[in-house]
């Protein structure tokens, strides 16, 4: 489908000029410039090249000790140039969007290839983009007073919950990322991606010096008015304070293998660590994932269907287009227990001969894109969450987590519970201290015996790190029961029944 240089020149007039065209307006960028940059990128014989322009404005506010101690704003802009030749990738970037700097970056990236300039540029095809998060932010400055109000209200609400709440930190951060992706395969995509988050952390202390901490937050690709609705500062403050107070009475967590029930929502971090990363196509192309070669095989119980969905409106992990200009998708990873496929970017799709699922993401123009998750969650089942709790004789009910990590190659993953309870004879009893749960990705979901009807997505706090690149993601899960998982507590005698 290579249409050649001439048709590129012709087709560019078909681009919908009603688009925002941020970089054309702000940097005087022209289509002729883009042609020159791509030609320079392919001048040493590369097969594919792309340009990623990024202009990011951000604001961050933090209240501590009831004072607005920190306020910052910033702008970063740049362009990354990638050239692919076979399995080789050359990459260079510039934070100066002048033509000679971009050309210099393009020629640097081009050096990965060695051969005569050969690949013509095809005509651009602007992808049919969705509008999952229509940007309504008028400007960063206009709303600063309202943003200050958010953090001050959060501080006040958290302190008002309980006299034992001694320290409160509330922070608000937002950004607006304008991107333009242009590639030698004809890709042309622009997007404006807002991202906002409000966070509250509390420390509770008793007179005897027992302390506890709580954390809550949320947001998404939303405008400021989001935080003046149901998910207001008081909502997050109440939740953070509740967790901190709860911890004051927590007893030691048990140690060893036992039944574990996960509550709905953020505990979906299990899926992100246990299966999500292992299904990213790059690891499977290189056969370094414990999931390599398992497509079509049973990797979970029949009750488990897991998807990655970048098309949910307003969600933190959603994108109209990924960072390679490809529209995001709703991809089924595991269907009724059977592994269906991987999450792919352009490079892995081409090298593996699979479809590009629109999961090519990067932290910024300084980074090479790679397969990443968007919003990863398990579809609801039929079980009543109360029945799930009642079915457990001795176990742990974990409802909040700090985060997790996975070793892709051996499949071992952890996720650390920050709020959890003992289940004894079908009843939720005492809160327990934070404990790490550890398991094996390719088989943990085979031990899921019950799946609740209460799917919930997280509040919008997740940031995923891979190869030093951080990207916002979402997770979700209904209440589920895992028949056997190792809990990393310290309790010895009183939890004797847990230690087989």
């Amino acid at each position: 489908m290579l249409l050649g240089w001439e048709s590129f020149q012709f087709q560019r007039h078909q681009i919908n000029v009603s688009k925002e065209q941020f970089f054309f307006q702000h940097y005087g960028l022209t289509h002729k410039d883009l042609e020159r940059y791509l030609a320079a990128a392919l001048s040493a014989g590369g097969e594919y090249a792309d340009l990623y322009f990024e202009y990011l404005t951000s604001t961050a506010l933090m209240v501590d000790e009831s004072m607005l101690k920190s306020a910052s704003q910033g702008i970063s802009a740049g362009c990354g140039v990638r050239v692919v030749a076979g399995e080789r990738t050359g990459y260079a970037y510039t934070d100066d969007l002048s033509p000679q700097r971009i050309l210099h970056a393009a020629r640097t990236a081009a050096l990965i290839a060695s051969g005569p300039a050969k690949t013509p540029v095809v005509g651009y095809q602007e992808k049919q983009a969705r509008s999952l998060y229509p940007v309504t932010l008028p400007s960063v400055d206009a709303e600063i007073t309202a943003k200050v109000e958010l953090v001050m209200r959060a501080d006040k609400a958290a302190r008002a919950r309980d006299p034992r709440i001694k320290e409160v930190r509330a922070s608000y951060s937002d950004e607006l990322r304008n991107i333009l992706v242009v590639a030698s395969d004809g890709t042309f995509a622009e997007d404006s991606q807002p991202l906002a988050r409000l966070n509250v952390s509390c420390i509770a202390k008793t007179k005897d010096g027992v302390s506890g901490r709580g954390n809550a937050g949320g947001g998404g690709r939303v405008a400021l008015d989001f935080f003046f609705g149901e998910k207001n500062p008081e909502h997050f403050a109440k939740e953070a304070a509740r967790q901190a107070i709860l911890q004051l009475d927590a007893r030691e967590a048990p140690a060893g293998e036992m039944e574990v029930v996960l509550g709905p929502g953020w505990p979906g971090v299990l899926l992100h660590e246990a299966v999500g990363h292992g299904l990213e196509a790059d690891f499977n192309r290189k056969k370094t994932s414990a999931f390599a070669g398992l497509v079509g095989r049973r990797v979970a119980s029949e009750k488990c269907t897991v998807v990655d969905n970048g098309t949910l409106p307003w969600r933190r992990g959603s994108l109209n287009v990924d960072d390679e200009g490809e529209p995001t998708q709703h991809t089924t990873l595991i269907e009724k227990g059977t592994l269906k496929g991987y999450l792919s970017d352009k490079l892995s799709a081409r090298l593996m001969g699979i479809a590009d699922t629109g999961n090519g993401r990067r932290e910024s123009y300084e980074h090479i894109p790679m397969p990443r998750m968007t919003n990863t969650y398990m579809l609801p089942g039929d079980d009543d969450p109360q029945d799930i709790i009642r079915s457990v004789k001795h176990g742990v009910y974990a409802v909040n987590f700090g985060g997790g990590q996975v070793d892709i190659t051996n499949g071992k993953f952890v996720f650390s519970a920050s709020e959890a309870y003992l289940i004894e004879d079908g009843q939720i009893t005492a809160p327990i201290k934070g404990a790490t749960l550890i398991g094996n990705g390719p088989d943990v979901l085979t031990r899921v015996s019950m799946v609740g009807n209460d799917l919930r997505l997280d509040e919008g706090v997740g940031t995923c790190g891979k190869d030093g690149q951080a990207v916002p993601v979402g997770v979700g899960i209904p209440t589920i029961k895992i028949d056997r998982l190792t809990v990393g507590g310290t309790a010895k005698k009183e939890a004797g029944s847990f230690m087989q």
Partner: protein
Amino acid sequence: MTDSTLEAQSPKLETDLKEIAADVVRRAMAGGATAAEAVVREGDEFSALVRLGQIETLKESGSKAIGVRVFFGQSAASTYSSDFSREGIECMVKSALELAKVTSEDPYGGIPEPSQLGSLPGDLDLYYEDVYSLPGAERIDYARRAEKAALDFDPRIKNSEGGSFDAATGHKVLANSHGFVGEYRRSYCSVAAVPIAQSEDGGMQRDYWFSVARSLSRLEPAEQVGKIAAQRTVRRLGARKAKTAQVPIVFDPMVANSILDHIFEGVNGDSVYRGASFLAGKLGQKIAGDNVTVIDDGTMPGGFGTSPFDGEGVPTRRTVVIENGVLKSYLLNTYTAKKLGLQTTANASRGLAGTPGIGPGNYFLQPGTKTPQQIIAGIGEGLYVTEFLGHGVNLVTGDYSRGASGLWISGGELTFPVEEITVAGNLKQMFFNISELGNDLEFRGAMACPTIRIDGLTVGGE
């Protein structure tokens, strides 16, 4: 301007970053600020990744950015930008001045006193141009040799995440309204290998090893890095779970580092004044066994945590954090020192935006006299941890629970590999229970710890 005139300009346009930083401070003061501080950071990076003998990625770039922090009396705000045009800088300064109007007056806010400012004299041995001296092909060859040494080491090493060679230089300038203008350059290069081993039953294991140095001439041979990476990987094959038990645990230096890091976070002034640390209020008290002495030293020539001044322009120094188990000092910047009624320890770390945080100099646990083998030999049944997974540490309460893998110790020797287990306890007790310290202190970053043995922790497994 036409394209041709733009093309004629040198892409390596040299600008005096000190002058730019001082100019930003002047503009902020002219705009009504009562104090101001500007930071400029410029850097270059190169990285090559070779996988199964073939180049996989090559990356080469440079960037620079500027940030400013302004005070109106005791209200502060900061802005940053990568736009060094006149308009870009004016806009950044103006935004900071505007933003400072919404923040609260904080009686402890401000930049350091003039008498506190300064820069260590002499050459701190931080910058070597030789990190970029190799031609491109030889840099790639470095990565290739590291990976090849790993692949050749053992037939069970059948795959790889690759070998890599990285180089970077950084140039940092800081200026403030007390007239301080300082700058320094640092260089860095590293070689690493990440091999994957496979056993007959198909189970895979991955591990890594690396060498890092400020000068290419000090980098360990690529072959040695690859060989150690391979040894670390192969010994994990066939790992199984361990039984839930309380046994002595030996931490190899890489994982022991993370425990030392928890002390760092615990003495971090920002956590201390908020009571968010399990070590808050413990100054002068015994918080660890007699054998525990922890030092932070930002002045060590050539160190990975060395700089002539900290993120606020205060000369770095050597601070004894813990001496024979007694907490002697927190690690502080100007703000947290004022909050606690103490003096800064010159540990301010400054990003482009926001208020300064706290960062380590060269931060380490004083080594003991036993070799790691001697420490292991003293244990009947125990665990040797070589890797942690996850971040299950609560610094407010000290509760500690992490995923782990390593080797089982039996009869004083390393026996079979173990994985999918947890290690749990509480930091407050752990530092009293460090029963052995190795003699193998080695800096592979700003923090370093020898092999240590800790008793009383719970291993969670089967």
